């Protein structure tokens, strides 16, 4: 049995899955103490805890600490060399620029100065900073400067993150932001993981604890200790994965809509896999290298505020409170549905009272106005969905083959989850002109998504047979290779590393490995080829675990 828990801003959902069956669900109010909330939710499931094989958490802990800036002070030691002035990316006084430079092929051209690093570390130590992030430009092509800085300051700081271990992606400013956030949320995450483990043990749960990440995959609690930044934005990831788990025809390209009270999250599943942000997700107004799902959030939901402007009706993008029929202050799309008899939970009379003045001002029939409100809401969602798909399809390509054979993303079905999904289904089908599925367990889709997500991890391998060097930043591999190394050798090596390091990466060793990108280029000196530059990105494939999807 697997437990999935999704801790949202107001509610916490829990679900227990046994094979292909959802055997228990629970909903509790999210309290100030998240560990208590988790405990309450698990207890509310009323199941035999000894049979739990793993527990998966989707939390807002790191997301909120970043957005609300409630994190420990962290210092940064950054080496860059020439380029865009790195001080433009410094946002606290604890960021320090030191000497050192590496070029795009990973060749050092300005060394690190140990005395300077030690001096900077001394300043941070004196200020009482416990965490330090270390970043150098092109460290994913040659991590030696980050490693050298680490060894100089090693014993002095409790929480340390090295840029190259967090992502193999190229992007120095994003590496700075990612490393800073990782270091800053590390203490709070470590405390949290420790307390959850203790609480689970008290309940008699000793099976593995996993965390949901922004990319819709999971990793172990010990990996979450080291890489807490990857757990940001797991909420939208949970809903996309829940939708995927509940999708009956995942091979058809699916437009996923998670329709809430205030906002609707839009995503796309292609061949049963959600699509990712190509460079990394944004958080707290900054761009990171954190691998995450591509999700667009729009201010259109069941509780969106309805107003009149001239002869126009405006729906959203804000929310005033609950719908009038549920005791709220102003009319909402839910009230329009209530008037039409399509939403029966609330007080229809209150809905009529709220919408009637709008009909009066427009001189229109009440039920016509209600239909208009709903169609405007659905249209707003559709417009954003079209813009989202458009953006996906506008993605630049770099080869003639891709230019001549474009892979156009064209959804063939809709999947809607969230509170108002069931009521909006016929309206969505009419507007989008395609089938819309609202799954049975849509209310606990997020917790289900957490429970059923596979473990995922990506590694990047770069091999330069002229420099005789192979680097895998995520695993800290930097070694000599023979000049004869071919792409197939590199691929085999990468696959082996992914499996051998499953524990360290926090993933299951049985995961299906897929190639995300592979390129090989000649290195030419004068007019003859003197080596090959090979780039490879491997991942354990995201998706829903086989025990669920195979049946």
């Amino acid at each position: 049995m697997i437990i999935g828990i999704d801790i949202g801003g107001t509610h916490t959902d829990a679900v227990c899955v046994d094979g292909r069956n959802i055997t228990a669900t629970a909903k509790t109010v999210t309290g100030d103490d998240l560990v208590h909330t988790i405990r309450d939710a698990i207890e509310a499931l009323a199941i035999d805890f000894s049979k739990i094989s793993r527990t998966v958490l989707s939390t807002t802990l790191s997301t909120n600490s970043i957005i609300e800036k409630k994190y420990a002070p962290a210092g940064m030691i950054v080496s860059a060399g020439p380029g865009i002035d790195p001080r433009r990316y410094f946002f606290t006084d604890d960021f320090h620029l030191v000497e050192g430079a590496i070029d795009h092929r990973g060749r050092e051209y300005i060394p690190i100065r140990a005395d300077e690093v030690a001096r900077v570390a001394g300043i941070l130590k004196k200020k009482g900073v416990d965490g330090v992030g270390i970043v150098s430009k092109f460290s994913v092509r040659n991590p030696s400067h980050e490693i050298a800085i680490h060894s100089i300051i090693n014993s002095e700081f409790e929480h340390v993150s090295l840029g190259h271990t967090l992502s193999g992606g190229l992007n120095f400013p994003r590496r700075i932001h990612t490393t800073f956030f990782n270091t800053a949320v590390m203490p709070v995450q470590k405390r949290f993981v420790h307390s959850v483990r203790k609480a689970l043990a008290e309940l008699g749960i000793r099976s593995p604890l996993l965390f949901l990440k922004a990319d819709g995959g999971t990793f172990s609690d010990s990996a979450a200790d080291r890489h807490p930044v990857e757990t940001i934005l797991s909420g939208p990831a949970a809903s996309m994965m829940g939708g995927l788990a509940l999708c009956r025809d995942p091979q058809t390209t699916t437009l996923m809509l998670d329709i809430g009270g205030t906002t609707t999250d839009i995503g796309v599943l292609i061949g049963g896999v959600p699509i990712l942000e190509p460079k990394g997700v944004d958080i707290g107004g900054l761009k990171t290298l954190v691998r995450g799902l591509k999700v667009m959030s729009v201010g259109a939901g069941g509780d969106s505020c309805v107003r009149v402007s001239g002869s126009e009706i405006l729906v959203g993008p804000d929310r005033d409170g609950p719908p009038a029929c549920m005791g709220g202050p102003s009319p909402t799309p839910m009230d329009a549905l209530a008037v039409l008899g399509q939403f029966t939970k609330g007080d229809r009379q209150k809905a009529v009272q709220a919408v009637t003045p709008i009909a009066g001002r427009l001189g229109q029939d009440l039920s016509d106005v209600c239909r208009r409100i709903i169609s405007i809401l659905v249209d707003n969602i559709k417009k954003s969905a079209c813009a989202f798909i458009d953006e996906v399809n506008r993605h630049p390509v770099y080869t003639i083959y891709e230019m001549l054979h474009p892979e156009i993303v064209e959804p063939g079905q809709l999947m809607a989850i969230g509170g108002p999904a069931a009521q909006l289904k016929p309206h969505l089908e009419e507007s989008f002109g395609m089938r819309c599925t609202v799954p049975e367990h849509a209310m606990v889709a997020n917790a289900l998504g957490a429970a059923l997500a596979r473990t995922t991890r990506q590694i990047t391998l770069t091999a330069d047979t002229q420099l005789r060097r192979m680097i895998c930043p995520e695993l800290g591999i930097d070694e000599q290779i023979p000049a004869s190394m071919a792409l197939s050798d590199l691929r085999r090596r990468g696959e082996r590393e992914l499996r051998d390091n499953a524990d360290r990466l926090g993933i299951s060793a049985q995961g299906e490995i897929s190639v995300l990108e592979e390129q090989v280029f000649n290195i030419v000196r004068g007019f003859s080829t003197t080596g090959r530059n090979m780039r490879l990105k491997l991942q354990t494939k995201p998706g829903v675990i086989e025990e669920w999807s195979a049946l």
Partner: protein
Amino acid sequence: MITARRKTGLIFFPAYDWEISPSHPERQERLLYTQDQVMEEGVLDIDGISEFKAGLATEKDICRPHFCVPDVESRITPSHSVSAGGCIEAARLVLDGTVDNAFALVRPPGHHAMRVVHGARGFCNINIEAVMIEWVRKHYPHIRKIAVVDTDCHHGDGTQDVYWHDPNVLYISLHQDGRTLYPGSGFPEEFGGPNALGKNLNIPLPPRTSDEGILHVMEHFVMPVLKDFEPDLIINSAGQDNHYSDPITNMSFTAGGYARLNEILAPDICVLEGGYSIEAALPYVNTGIILALAGVDYSYIREPDLDPERIREDPRVIDYIRNLTDDLLDLWSRREHFERPQEEFFRRSRNIFYDTDGISENQHEVVRVCTECPGAYRIDSSASTGYHVLAIHIPWGACSRCREQGLAWFEKPDRKNYYAVYLQDMDNDEYSVKIL
């Protein structure tokens, strides 16, 4: 977070699956290290700088500036359509106001491709700037005057040829002196056709000219000329083989110098041309150009091995350039007073060599000397491939007499043994071919 002062669009198309041959300078990984540098610097995350997808130039787009012999299909590969299409997208972004300026960082290049195309010259099959310019004139008729400032190390003899007779396209080229480098042309006396005198300006620079020399030409010649010409659109053919590390040329320009050049010029569109120091120059030069276009501080962009003292010009080189610039400015100021030929038709004959494909071509050109319009012209072209063709151009805004003359040339070819007769009728956007 860095915010750009100007909105800049980047069309990046490295064509990772196209090369002339595996060890040819124009090969697959030419822009690989540029991509690495631009990605690592986070240039595309700067607020105001955005990347856009390249497009595909159509056959008609290519027929506007070119007579492809025997036809477009046999003279290009899909990579050329994308590279020219990338330039078109860059122009579209600027002219629709999506961005303030744009950089088509595409390959293969184009500035050695002339109006008649029998094959590839200087790694170029079609002239990607010319395809873009003619597309702009067709779709944005309010753009009447266009300036191309070509800063590639090689003389852009292709662009010079395409616009030789066009008074509305000013072509200015700064390049290593043709006596020391391919293609061996690009001297001040190449001043434009009889209907476009002064609209073709060449500044041949001595080998080892560096930042000071090139920026002197920009400030003291190119900018005053542009001020007089008042172009509606400025294009920089931004070849980067004038860099001190380039393996096939002898100039000493730097990434910082190139960024400054674009800051001074403030072009609407930059188009990559040559540049074959793919590890030591292109990553830094391209980053510098993008930042300069966007109005972002580029002063810390520097090549790892830069030693300004080692590449500084000899004072005699600077003196030479000062004198050259003064002479050229004087020539420019007298452009209205040059005497046009008195006869109705002006003729020239020449031999053109296609180094990349090893083809030689003989051209006999006849242009109608006209005061009303840019003048119709015909080119009798025979190549070592065996093709002998007649190509007729009726220019944008042709007067009725030039139009009649052009149509007459097309209807009644002067000889029967042409393989085909081609017609470019710009105002009607019609491109016809008659196989004889």
